[in-house]
């Protein structure tokens, strides 16, 4: 290979500063209009579309040299894609990384919100596969943009009503639609509806990046976020008859694990940091 192409020629955080400025401007607009999907000049990243390119661009635009980054996928720090994204930022930004929710200043996540409550000085960045909550009901982008402009969300209410008519309750268990600040119908990304209440009036700024679909949106701190429901069919979250088999938590989202070939199951926390903090604390108390 000729020396014309320098393999170390990447800017801090991979993206060039002009691109970061474009992203920050789009993010400011997103914060100014909570829940509104801002089209942005999504760049082609060295990781595949659908694997977190939106979240990665948001994180890249926000990271400074003193930030401490945590990356989770399915609530866990050690799932392969989370490892890979953390490795990427280690390589192109060299920032400190952590697995502890409380120690992180920026948390990039796919499919979960950490169980440990977030603070005002933390940023939560979501990877979003499909930013348009109406997409499965109306595939045409030109139509859905008009529906948002008119706050015409009848289609979604009818869908939820039909669920109740057919199944007795709303049959959406993740990516459960929310109204942000009473104005925009918004996808919370495919988090389980268990996590929806954590979006409401969160002290931490929540930023959503959809790279393939080229949209950004935000839920600013302390913004009202309501999960859609009806007066006679209020919103409910998932509950388990089990507790976590490792830390005995009764208040966390549980993953079901098949442990043998006879179909025996066990239930453990999906949030690996929450689980290990609880186990460590229990061990310390026992020792004391």
């Amino acid at each position, binding site marked *: 290979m000729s020396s014309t192409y320098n393999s170390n020629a990447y800017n801090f955080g991979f993206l060039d500063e002009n691109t970061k400025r474009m992203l920050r401007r789009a993010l400011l607009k997103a914060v100014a209009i909570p829940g509104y999907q801002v089209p942005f000049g999504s760049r082609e990243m060295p990781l*595949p579309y659908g694997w977190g390119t939106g979240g990665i661009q948001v994180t890249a635009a926000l990271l400074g040299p003193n930030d401490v980054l945590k990356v989770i996928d399915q609530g866990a720090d*050690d799932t392969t894609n989370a*490892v890979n994204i953390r490795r990427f930022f280690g390589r192109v930004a060299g920032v400190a990384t952590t697995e502890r929710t409380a120690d992180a200043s920026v948390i990039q996540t796919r499919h*979960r919100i950490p169980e440990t409550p977030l603070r005002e000085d933390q940023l939560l960045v979501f990877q979003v596969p499909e930013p348009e909550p109406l997409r499965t009901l109306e595939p045409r982008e030109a139509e859905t943009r008009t529906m948002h402009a008119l706050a015409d969300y009848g289609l979604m209410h009818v869908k939820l009503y039909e669920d109740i008519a057919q199944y007795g309750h709303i049959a959406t268990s993740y990516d459960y639609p929310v109204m942000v600040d009473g104005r925009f119908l918004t996808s919370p990304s495919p988090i389980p509806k268990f996590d929806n209440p954590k979006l409401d009036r969160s002290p931490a700024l929540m930023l959503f990046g959809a790279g393939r679909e*080229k949209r950004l949106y935000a839920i600013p701190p302390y913004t009202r976020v309501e999960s859609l429901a009806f007066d006679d069919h209020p919103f409910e979250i998932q509950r*388990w008859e089990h507790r976590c088999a*490792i830390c005995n938590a009764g208040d966390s989202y549980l*993953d*079901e694990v098949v442990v043998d070939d006879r179909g025996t199951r066990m239930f453990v926390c999906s949030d690996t940091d929450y689980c290990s903090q609880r186990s460590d604390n229990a061990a310390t108390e026992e020792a004391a």
Partner: protein
Amino acid sequence: MYVAVKGGERAIARSLELLAEARRGDTAVPELELVQIRQQLRLGVARVMQEGSLYDEELAALAIRQAAGDLQEAIFLLRAYRTTLPRFGYTEPLTTQAMRVRRRVSGTFKDIPGGQVLGPTYDYTQRLLEFGPSIQNETVEADEPLAASMPRVLDLLDAEALIERIDPGSDPEPTDLTRDPLMFPADRATRLQNLARGDEGFLLGMAYSTQRGYAESHPFAGEIRMGEVDVLICPEELGFTIEIGEITLTECQMINQFHGGNGVPPQFTRGYGLTMGEGERKAMAMALVDRSLRCDELGEAAYAPAQNQEFVLSHSDNVEASGFVQHLKLPHYVDFQAELSLLRTLSAQQRKASAGQEALS
């Protein structure tokens, strides 16, 4: 006892080592050199440059080697590298009329000024595997050089006012789809830009569907030409244009029958395709899809997938499509768990309901 699935980091490192080993193969066999790929796999290089939106044979060859010949992966590599490149400026519009033609055929006229030129084409090979070492024949020089002027076939029709006139000056300033998101409805220049980056296989299937009744399409290959075109830029500090090199292009101009409508009289209409490097199949497919996407402008009934611009343009990019289809192999434990508990609730409910029915009967 359950052991948490740990060690993603180590597993990734081991996997990368295996990949490198598998890519290289038997080390007793010499590694492919980039110049071999550039010269002997030139059509693969052209496709990677074309869909990777970066005209650089050396980098395309490197990407193909790194991707072990998986052209979509090579396209992805090139696109990711392209993102990081600074923009020095934009070229002047390319003049394909002044192309130094190596191939030029028309399906609409038997003879055309400048003549039909087959050039290096697979069209009339007999697709018989050539066993043994490849034949080293000598090319024979033509009796006379190609005509200096090769007017575009569609311009001949244009002189007779039989084909729609499109004033090049009427085009809006083009958007850059790698800098601005695709918005709908998209104008023709933006649609063509999207198709130029689109997957050849996807466009081929879409184009084929228009020939089989899924759109109004009565196309003739007015002209296909391939050859070299000068690239000119006009740097601000100079104030005049300079030539910075040449690139190979394939251009296809389709002529489509049109019975008139939307205030436009009956006439021939145009479909346009252009690719970097030799890419005739893609250029032809692109021209057919371009024409079918003009249905709104020409007041044609739009009912077919190839006439639906949101459908075509949102799904044409193979880097986007490949990533999103394959993201399904990422963990979805959390959502699957949510669906599992919902399904258990629903089935318990149904069992209860049917038990209640039996008790009643």
